[in-house]
């Protein structure tokens, strides 16, 4: 192995020699490509980068990244990542997992990694299905999803990944789409730049078990009408001719779509995206077709003063610095009441 430096690496320098074993046409290939591009764009140091994953198709990700990698157990990647950051906060830690991994078996750990604000970038590949176990419905599958375990259609309500994240006080939530190579690398760079837990939902097509479930907003013909690219400081406008915008319905306190130029609705009436505004972020996260476009981009970003592990280590240091023991082991052993027995 040769020693690599972060300078001037190209996306392919972040690829391993391992044969990629996803199904042909899987959305994961596109995400892998976007991540490798983002790494090159960032100038990430492979030696100080760690990809941590749980179990599932997405969780094979670390094997394909020429960085450090830890393929762990189902749902627990955020917990491993937390331990890694506590041991070495200078590492760049990425967590990769699917919707079953992150929101079902590992939902608890996702919750706590987010609310603690551990400085990791969490990429949740959402394909609304269990792929590796051959196609059972997942916690993000829409009502009525037919699968081997729900032959008559699923009857439990799905979880919305970004609303969940915001609900547990995420300070960075974003959404991207596997097919959007023009958009995804930049989004990943933003997630990486965020200090604290950045949570990114990546819409990912499972070509074998759930093919086409996102077509209504990802296909070429519809994407401009059904995707809204949120950018900080810019009006929330979308559509083939950029003719539609979002405004607030003051009766329902909900967003609504209106056409520019109709009923006196002008560009000045369009809500301007403020990614530090939780209310806007939450409303954008909740938008669903057919009445709304799917919002992509950084929906909410409000960094805390310090990430969890930095705060832990700062407290450790502050206490240690003022401790008179200076870490002397014999002082510890003699703590409390002691007495001498003379010979």
């Amino acid at each position, binding site marked *: 192995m040769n020693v690599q430096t972060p300078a001037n690496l190209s996306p392919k320098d972040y690829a391993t020699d391992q044969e990629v074993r996803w199904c042909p046409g899987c959305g994961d290939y596109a995400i892998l490509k976007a991540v490798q591009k983002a790494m090159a764009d960032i100038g990430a140091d492979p030696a100080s980068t760690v990809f941590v994953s749980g179990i599932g198709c997405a969780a094979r990700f670390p094997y394909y990244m020429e960085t450090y990698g830890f393929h*762990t157990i189902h749902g*627990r990647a955020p917990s491993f990542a937390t331990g890694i950051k506590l041991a070495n906060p200078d590492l760049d830690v990425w967590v990769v997992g699917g919707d079953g991994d992150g929101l079902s078996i590992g939902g608890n750990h996702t919750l706590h990694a987010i609310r603690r604000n551990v400085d990791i970038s969490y990429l949740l590949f959402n394909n609304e299905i269990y792929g590796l176990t051959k196609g059972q419905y997942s916690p993000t599958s829409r009502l009525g999803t037919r699968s081997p375990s729900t032959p008559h259609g699923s009857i439990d309500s799905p979880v919305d990944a970004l609303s969940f994240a915001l609900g547990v006080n995420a300070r960075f939530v974003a959404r991207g789409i596997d097919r959007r190579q023009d958009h995804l690398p930049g989004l990943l760079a933003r997630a990486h730049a965020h200090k604290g837990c950045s949570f990114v939902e990546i819409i990912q097509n499972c070509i074998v078990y759930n093919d086409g479930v996102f077509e209504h907003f990802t296909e070429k013909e519809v994407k401009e009408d059904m995707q809204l690219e949120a950018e900080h400081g810019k009006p929330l406008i979308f559509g083939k001719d950029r003719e539609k915008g979002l405004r607030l319905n003051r009766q329902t306190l909900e967003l609504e779509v209106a056409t520019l130029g109709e009923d006196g609705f002008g560009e000045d009436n369009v809500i301007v995206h403020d990614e530090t505004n939780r209310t806007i972020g939450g409303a954008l996260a909740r938008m669903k077709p057919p009445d709304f476009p799917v919002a992509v981009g950084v929906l909410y970003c409000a960094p805390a003063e310090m990430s969890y592990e930095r705060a832990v280590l700062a407290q450790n240091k502050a206490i240690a610095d003022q401790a008179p023991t200076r870490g002397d082991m014999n002082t*510890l052993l003699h703590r409390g009441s002691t007495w001498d027995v003379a010979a």
Partner: protein
Amino acid sequence: MDGGSAVSDESGNELESAVVRFAGDSGDGMQLTGTQFTQATAMARNDLATFPDFPAEIRAPAGTTFGVSAFQIHFGSRTIRTSGDAVDVLVAMNPAALKTNLGDLRKGGLIIVDTGSFSRRNLNKAGFEENPLEDGTLDGYRKLEVDMTRMTVEAVKPFGLGNKDAQRCKNMWALGLVDWLFGRDRTINEDWLKQKFARKPAIANANIAALNAGHAFGETADMAREFGSFVVPPADIKPGTYRALTGAEGVAMGLVAGARLAGLPLLFTGYPITPASALLHLLAPLKDYGVTTFQAEDEIAAVCAAIGGSYAGSLGVTSSSGPGIALKTEAIGLAIATELPLVVVNSQRGGPSTGLPTKTEQSDLYQAIYGRNADSPLAVVACHSPGDAYFAAIEACRLAVKYMTPVMFLTDGYISNAAEPWLIPDFEDHEPFPVTFRTDPEGYQVYARDPETMARAWVKPGTPGLLHRIGGIEKHHLTGDISYDADNHQEMTDNRLNKILGIANDIPAQAVDQGRAGGRVAVVGWGSTYGPISRAVSNKRAQGHDVSHIHIRHIRPMPPNLGDLLKSYDTVIVPEMNTGQLVTVLRAEYLVDAKPLNKVNGKPFRIVEIEDALKDWL
């Protein structure tokens, strides 16, 4: 001998050992009283062992039997190995305490009761229809009835406390009396009160007045003639500096010491569970010792964070009790597959399921050795006393980092809570075992092994030139690439097993704790049965019987000489606080006809129980 016959002289002469139990309501301060009597006893150079028995309920209603809190101390002029079979002196601060503790008092033993608390209401709460002080319940015991409540209130009158605060001093009155009874110097108790209530001098002075009043009562009352005071002469104790040590403290300091000897920061992760939480509480303040603690969202997250910590170059340690260990199991398998150091501390308690959280048991031995899916070997180390816990925890850390393996460290609720005087070691005397992280990229292969230990190299992420991926999928035995190859899986399975078995060459040969190699009977134990086995065997040996005591620390792998050693006895008896776990391991491993001796009532073995069992074989 131990076992209920300790206090034989009732006229005030010398005793070899005595057992005193302070029992009262949760709010009566019995743990403090016991701890203070322990301090005074240690200063008098007796050897001793203590055990607290507090209720599972956080705030049990006052006066009820399930709100009774007790503290027992066994002390003597010879080596003390248990907290005592039968109680010689019972201090009962209320009717409920009398009711729940009377059964453990030996016949002819002394009861000291606070009659001031024996109101009709308290008698009802304790479930007494008649007053036991009057109805003959206490026939066969000696009883000292004192209205401690009233006498305490009188003694502290000058300090102007409210009635409630005044009454709260009565535990110190009781302590003063018991200090007098055993000729203890109460200066250390006074000093402690002054320190504890430094900011509340009135409270400090009131408590000292109560302490002195209890002592004066002993000196001046006529009771001396009737009850006598006891003399327990100093024991022959090795010179040096001592402290009181609980098992939880022993484990905590052992882990800190182990990490220090390895040259690593300690990442200790846990989730609250009885009786393991004490470790988290003890380690959380030790930030000046390179300790980072993490209270995780659950047991699984705790073990995963510890493994993540080890992966990144700390010593990852997680701790729980049986039910929590069960939850950690899958992740421990990952640490086995990825060959990362990890120490898993199990403070065992009664089970299955929630079981008896505050009671002791040693029924997780199978779980430690076998309790994972697949062939997933790890090392198992068990400590046998509070002081031993320190050294055994260091050993667990040593094995984890040297062999790149999870180590299950077994302690139990009894050891955790029990305390004993501890001859404080000099840390400089410990042999360091510094970890060397691999930094040389030349020829690095993820699963290439050290020829001696079979451990793979430990590489910290962040190291240039050594990029690699690990995980739970089977890996090639050298490159670490994913491998589904049949022969490779056989080889990796063999490697994982042989690495653990090879540890046997790096641990001390099994010693005979008492007695000799070969002979009639060996009593073989592990963990907290050490005390009662040790005393039972020494009692039997004093009677001339050919019986030896072997105590096993390294449960997996076991010392290489153990099989031959066991086969050198006519009979091998294995007392355990479970239904027979070590015994089947020994039978399977060595084909010896070991006999089980089992007990699972939430309490440690009494010495006499082991002695009785031995009668059949001697």
